[in-house]
């Protein structure tokens, strides 16, 4: 049963509720219930967090290396350079997110105008 396999107006909402809302808020509610019990210095906490972080990092790589939509028309090397230079600027500026995003955008847009 995929998103478009049932031709009914209510099905996408059910699909989003089960595969989206429940899949996400389950962890938030678990986080609340564990709030009292799981120490944020415990090894289990650190392990779960490491797995989750690596997973989100893989999402980041996918969005930069294999994007869809308008971004897919830019060169891979340009996106990679923009991300690396933006991240370097972010670190040099004392981990200021705005600096990283601003510099990455400047490199990307500059490359777009240069026809890369």
């Amino acid at each position, binding site marked *: 049963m995929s998103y478009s*396999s049932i031709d009914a107006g209510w099905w996408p909402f059910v*699909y*989003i509720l089960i595969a989206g809302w429940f899949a996400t808020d389950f962890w938030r509610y678990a986080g609340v219930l564990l*709030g009292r019990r799981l120490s944020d210095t415990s090894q289990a906490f650190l392990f779960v967090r490491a797995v*989750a972080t690596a*997973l989100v990092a893989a*999402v980041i790589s996918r*969005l930069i290396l294999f994007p869809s939509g*308008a971004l897919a028309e830019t060169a891979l090397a340009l996106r990679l350079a923009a991300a690396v230079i933006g*991240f370097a600027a972010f670190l040099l500026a004392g981990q200021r997110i705005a600096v990283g995003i601003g510099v990455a955008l400047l490199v990307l847009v500059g490359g777009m105008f240069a026809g890369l």
Partner: protein
Amino acid sequence: MQKTAVGMPPEGTYLLWFGRGMRMIVSLPAFILMSAFVGFAGFARESGIDFVHAVFMTAFIWALPAQVVLIAAIGAGMTIVPTFIAVTLSSVRLMPMVTALMPDLRTEKTRTVTLLFLSHFVAVTAWVMANQYLGQVPRRFRTAFFGGFVVTLTSCNLVVIALVYTFSTGIPPMVLGALFFLTPIYFLTSLWATARDHVVKIAMVAGLVLGPVFYLIAPDFDLLLAGIVGGVVAFLIGRRFPIGERSGGQ
């Protein structure tokens, strides 16, 4: 700590702190998130997602990575169970985030149902800002302050999505491309900035490298594999080579 004649505590009222939370919508992280949602809405629109569905999933999921994973799964025609697994794996990180926030947010009197309600709005931006500002709020008003901020933040981004769906035919591809790029860079920098432990930073690097590798080897399970393998590797390396106090910086 005398109370005034009308019984108002000297620090203010719940309504006042709710309002002060709402005011946080005018801040750089909130602006960045709205820009990211402009990119997300463009992405959803280009992926053929209906406007109502895009608003619905944003209100009910409220986690950009999970929403991007969900739309990618929809685009790939995945059935509901693998989609559930992919989305839930991208949302596991919310559990420790929420857990870590609880000691700052609650008092002994705070009802669990209040915390469950507020937890729905916990995502990277709200979490970073809560860590930054919650300490300045009197403890008994923290839920009001947090509620005022996160409900406003979510509502404003629903409006952002509506605006993008209404007007994005007029947005040039170059601008759309640039906006799509905000999301990964925002995740990249904010995840790194909020990583308190070197294991988390190792995990990030491992995920960044392993993600594309697994994408090419096993595109259906790339996120899952990168998360588990990267997380285990980072955890083991971090335990083998603890940095401790010498790391400096923080």
